């Protein structure tokens, strides 16, 4: 029940190109991110109880579940922010035990819950920090692309990030992650605490980013939105994956409807 069905929808990334992935054959091949038996514990409390999860190149996958289901812990484990057991592979490389900055340098970008922008830096300085580890010539073009995606950020480039509204801060956090030119973008609750109009805007942008070929793993409490934009979904409950499948199917699933969609 915790094995993910392979998605028939797999798009090749125009950003990274169709990369032949290294690593073991079998299910690890083709998956950009492959997680097996991931467990996270805080002291004696098991937050994540051995989950399997995969994200293919170019896919938009969502992980939904209620508060405290273990979604954020999963993301924190994937990005090396907390210790976890199990097997995490990104492009064939084992991530377990790598420090957060090393995972970030491999091309995994996290937009953390609560945004995590640098509040006293300006918008432009925040975006520049996104490209901190890059030495290639494409930074200026990527900056233009981010400003194109979020015209609001362009208007406020000289403004201190801490004075932006919640929605603008979320845009900035996503823009800053895009400045890393990530191979995998992890979004933790991008709709949290935002006005409905701003949520709609953020989700339009997420669709646009996915459309440009960036691989995304989206963690959300707002199941309705997440299922609408994603191709595949995992439903998490008290540390385990309860359901997995194409988002369209899960949307029609009576259990999902009653528990998460309020139908």
């Amino acid at each position, binding site marked *: 029940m915790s094995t993910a069905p392979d998605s028939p929808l797999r798009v090749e990334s125009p950003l990274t190109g169709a990369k032949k992935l290294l690593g073991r054959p079998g299910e690890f091949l083709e998956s950009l991110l492959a997680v097996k038996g991931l467990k996270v514990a805080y002291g004696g409390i098991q937050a994540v109880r051995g989950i399997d999860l995969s994200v293919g190149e170019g896919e938009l996958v969502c992980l939904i579940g209620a508060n405290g289901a273990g979604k954020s812990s999963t993301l924190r484990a994937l*990005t090396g922010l907390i210790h976890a057991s199990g097997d995490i592979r990104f492009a064939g490389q084992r991530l377990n035990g790598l420090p957060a900055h090393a995972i970030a340098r491999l091309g995994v970008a996290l937009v953390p819950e609560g945004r995590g922008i640098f509040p006293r830096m300006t918008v432009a300085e925040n975006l520049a920090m996104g490209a901190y580890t890059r030495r290639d010539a494409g930074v200026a073009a990527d900056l233009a692309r981010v400003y194109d995606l979020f015209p609001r950020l362009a208007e406020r480039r000289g403004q201190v990030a801490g004075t*932006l*509204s919640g929605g603008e801060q979320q845009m900035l956090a996503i823009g800053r992650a895009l400045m890393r030119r990530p191979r995998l973008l992890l979004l933790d609750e991008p709709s949290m605490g935002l006005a409905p109009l701003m949520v709609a805007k953020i989700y339009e942008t997420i669709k646009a980013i996915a459309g440009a070929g960036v691989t995304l793993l989206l963690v959300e409490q707002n199941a309705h939105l997440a299922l609408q934009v994603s191709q595949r979904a995992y439903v998490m409950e008290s540390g385990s994956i309860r359901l997995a499948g194409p988002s369209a199917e899960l949307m029609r699933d009576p259990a999902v409807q009653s528990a998460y969609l309020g139908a």
Partner: protein
Amino acid sequence: MLEFLHRPRTRAQARAAIILLAVLLALLPFLVEAGLGRSWVRVLDFALLYVILALGLNIVVGYAGLLDLGFVAFYALGAYLYAWLASPHFGLHLPFWVVLPLGAGLAGLFGVLLGAPTLRLRGDYLAIVTLGFGEIIRIFMNNLNAPVNITNGPQGINLIDPVTIAGVSFGKTQELFGITFASAHFYYYLFLVFTLATLFIAYRLQDSRIGRAWVAIREDEVAAAAMGINTRNIKLLAFAMGAVFGGVAGGLFAAFQGFISPESFTLWESILILCMIVLGGMGHIPGVVLGAVLLTVLPEALRYLGDWQRAALGEVVVDPGDLRMLLFGVALVLMMVYRPEGLIPSRQRKREFHAEDGVAAQEQASLYDSRA
């Protein structure tokens, strides 16, 4: 203080300003001696020493945001290493250009040793651990006179060699080029060179990639790691760089004083250096320089209050030393209330303390804009 160097109106004006400043700095000890007496030249020397120390601590506290209350430990290590290698205590008399880098290296090493176990600590917790570290070093220096006499305990180490450059000993009053140089004059120029070098390094660090990484860690450590910044190494580097400046200042202090004892390296010194940074404007170099100079010079000026009391009342009613503490406290409280960002804050620091004023209005405005 050095602000005008940042925005020179024309090149000629900038050059004129720099030349003027250089001449002023070169003549300062003689002007001060003529006006206030030789003891004030020593105060000037100490002011420069504290500028070096404050700029060092500013890397740790101001740039990287790591509250270090044990900074004096590195100052002590630099001073003691100098005393061990250039005094009759062990009978070693190495030249200062050998001893000083060794002291800086030792302090830097201890900076990493202190930093490594405290990497996961922040704020108050880090402050307490570093405070403990500072005390440990001082207590070691106080007690390492038996069974083997390493530090000479509370008596301290005496007769430390003065700095000697090109056969000129800085410890004696001498006539050079027809001008009489006292020890305090020699050290003024030596310390000035070191202060300028420290300023140069501090500015370069601030504008470097490392400097930006420090600021990012100060702002949000998790986000900094997510940007690919090796937070562990960058934090250790902050501790080490700060400690190196502390070690250099310690060596200079030992040579200048000719005598050191654990009493010079109490917690009070760490707090004083921290106050200099806070008072001047944390993280901003001109502010830190101003803070260091003010907090060295003002307490000395307060000493006159004792003389005035004696002249006016026939006796010293309030000990100037006590008054110093009182005024210090009052000054800091006033600062916290009226100018929490420091006397000359950085642009960023100013935002931090005054950003909230505009947030609510903007939050409102942007909510409405988003409909458009």
